[in-house]
């Protein structure tokens, strides 16, 4: 079961004999993609609702309270319906093809990246040995979508947003990639499932961030770089509401606009999950340890692992929201300074330190 697709393994024995193999694979692929799309949709719905509630409670307000009854849980759903039913507007003078393509590229990149993320130790769409590479590669593709949107909008504000995004992402991809090397040195695998399994010791608390002090430091750097990568405050310069009207989103409306938001929340969850996988235990927690001890690696363990990941991802998103509603925005030169002058050297030091620490640990034991 250590290769290929967990869904395929589940469904292949159920298929009748006369069905050709490629049809089974295709069906499985369609089911898998539907699951990912459903996850993205759910994350976006829950994310927008949570963002509004969290910001409201930080600001002494209630936030949505009416739609759907309990604490306005259906507000995001109602908003979605409203956005879908709005007129699809493309400004005169915009590059129509690019304008329409941009949100799809963003969303497609995040879908692809999410496909590489396992949902439970035995439930994944691909047991990818270079899983984290695939996630990073696809999530940096989103930049192209943003630049495309900014250029195609034929608006100066949008162009500003796109240029800022390009500059910012180039600056922060470097520390993002380098800091990830520190935990990779410790765990010795790019595979997300294996990385998670390697953190199961100490009652499920053998998290990489606690095994090596340099990894703990790099987790902070990684999180800051993730904020910049996902365009969240204080690095939300591409949108920069009060400066650039809405940055690259200025000319977008209706369903296309909402696609950008789906991408944003999906990317937030994805990057929080990656943080969890390589710094904070992945699926492993005392709860999953207990489930493993009591029920073995059956369905209960898988479910607990899935919930652990959801909780860790949500906590990451909560941290991002908390920061967004607390801090002012940085200026573009300060963003660049921080990325190139402080985070990148610090990330390199962390990798070096983590390596030396591991070497000493190895020599001692």
């Amino acid at each position, binding site marked *: 079961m250590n290769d290929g697709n967990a869904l395929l393994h589940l469904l292949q024995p159920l298929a009748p004999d006369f069905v050709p193999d490629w049809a089974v694979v295709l069906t499985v692929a369609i089911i898998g993609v539907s699951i990912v799309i459903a996850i993205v949709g759910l994350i976006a719905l829950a994310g927008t609702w949570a963002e509004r509630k969290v*910001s409201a409670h930080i600001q002494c307000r209630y936030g949505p309270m009416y739609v759907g009854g309990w604490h306005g849980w259906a507000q995001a759903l109602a908003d979605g319906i409203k956005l879908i039913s709005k007129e699809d507007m493309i400004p005169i003078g915009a590059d129509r093809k690019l304008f329409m393509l941009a949100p799809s590229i963003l969303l497609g990149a995040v879908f692809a990246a999410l496909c590489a993320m396992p949902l439970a130790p035995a439930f994944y769409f691909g047991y990818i040995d270079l899983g984290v590479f695939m996630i990073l590669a696809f999530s940096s593709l989103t930049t192209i979508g943003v630049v495309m949107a900014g250029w195609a909008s034929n608006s100066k504000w949008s162009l500003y947003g796109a240029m800022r995004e390009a500059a910012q992402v180039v600056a922060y991809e470097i520390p993002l990639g380098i800091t990830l090397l520190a935990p990779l040195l410790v765990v010795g695998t790019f595979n997300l499932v294996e990385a998670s399994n390697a953190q199961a010791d100490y009652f499920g608390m053998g998290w990489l961030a606690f095994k090596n002090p340099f990894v703990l430091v790099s987790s902070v750097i990684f999180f800051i770089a993730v904020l910049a990568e996902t365009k969240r405050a204080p690095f939300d310069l591409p949108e*920069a509401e*009060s*400066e650039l009207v809405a940055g690259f989103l200025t000319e977008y409306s209706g369903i296309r606009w909402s696609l950008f938001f789906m991408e944003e929340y999906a990317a937030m969850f994805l990057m929080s999950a990656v943080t969890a996988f390589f710094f904070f235990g992945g699926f492993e927690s005392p709860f999953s340890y207990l489930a493993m001890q009591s029920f073995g690696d059956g369905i209960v363990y898988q479910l607990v692992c899935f919930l652990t990941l959801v909780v860790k991802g949500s906590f990451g998103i909560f941290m991002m929201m908390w920061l967004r*509603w*607390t801090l*002012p925005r940085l*200026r573009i030169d300060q963003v660049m300074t921080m990325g190139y002058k402080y985070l990148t050297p610090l990330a390199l030091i962390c990798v070096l330190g983590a390596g030396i620490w591991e070497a000493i640990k190895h020599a001692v034991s």
Partner: protein
Amino acid sequence: MSEQTKDYKPSITIADQQAAANNGAREFMMDVRTTDLEVNMGPQHPATHGVMRILIRADGELVTGAQPHLGYLHRCAEKIGENVEWLQYLPYTDRYDYLAAMNNNLGYSLAVEALLGIEIPRRATMLRTICVELNRIASHLVAFGTYGLDLGAFTPFLYCFREREWLLMLFEKICGARLTYSYLRIGGVFNDAPPGWLEEVANFCDVFDEKWVEYRDLLMMNHIFIKRTADVGVITPEQALDFGLTGPMVRGSGIDWDLRRDMPYMIYDEIWKAGAFQVPLGSGAQGQLGDCWDRVYVRVQEMVESIKIVRWCLANIAEGPTIAELPKVLRVPPGEAYVGIENPRGELGHYLVSDGGKIAVRCRVRGPSFCNLPILEDIMPHTFLADSVAIIGSTDVVIGETDR
């Protein structure tokens, strides 16, 4: 069309290129046109707090020129003042600086009273002072909150509005309106404070003393906020005097000028002599003297000083009538008067000329926002685009007043 685009002439035309190609020139020169990017910040832009338009010339993120354009909210207030009766004009004064309507009422009333030469009952003066200072707090709360908003910090804005809401409720109790009060009339105030109002004001003062510390710690001393505002948009003391800035704009540059103390009206000289308030000045604590941080911090400190003034008035309030006896149809003796008062944004001056009739001959308003605005053109070039937002925010313009 601006100068730059109008005079644009391609240095090398297509014909030149073709000629060069025909002559066998190997180098093919592209005619790349490089000019500064011209963007209109406004009239519909979140940073301009209304319908002001600033034409920004930018080289990438760097602003190389800025030109404010006004007039989108012009309502001929001064001309109306020369066509309606003295008292009828009062509600129009609410509309200049709609965040500080009490102050506007006061400025106009004082100017008319100067022409009339009447005595205002002491209780009315006290109530006026309380309302004006509370309104100053409400106005500075908006200025401070929206400044955070300009820099991307949303939460302090809501905290400011929480306190402002309380103030508006107090105003609603005393005069029935939340924004355009028309409470300060010629000769005094419209009515006495309702029972329990003064106690509630005292209660507000006590709560506010705790709250303003919250603003200072959450936003003013925030590292990112200081990074964004210190050394940005520096107005030197000389510049401040040259441009005739008033209010927190000039005090932020370290010039000790406050009309409440230096050209006292109402009972401010009495309050000053009692030592009830100080005039906060910019000190360059986080960067240079006269930067955005200084100006904003002056506003935050002024709120505390206003609380002190309100406290003094509450302690010394007198009993008695709240409006002077005036005829139903007001005829103002011939003459002219200028009264300048310290509005939250600077000196609000009213210059009135009367020929003894029911209507003013000339009604001229010197609006602080309007007079504080031209400095933008001088301090905005050679900053970043994000800084220009910080600078506009720190001048704290209210478009209702720049255009009137």
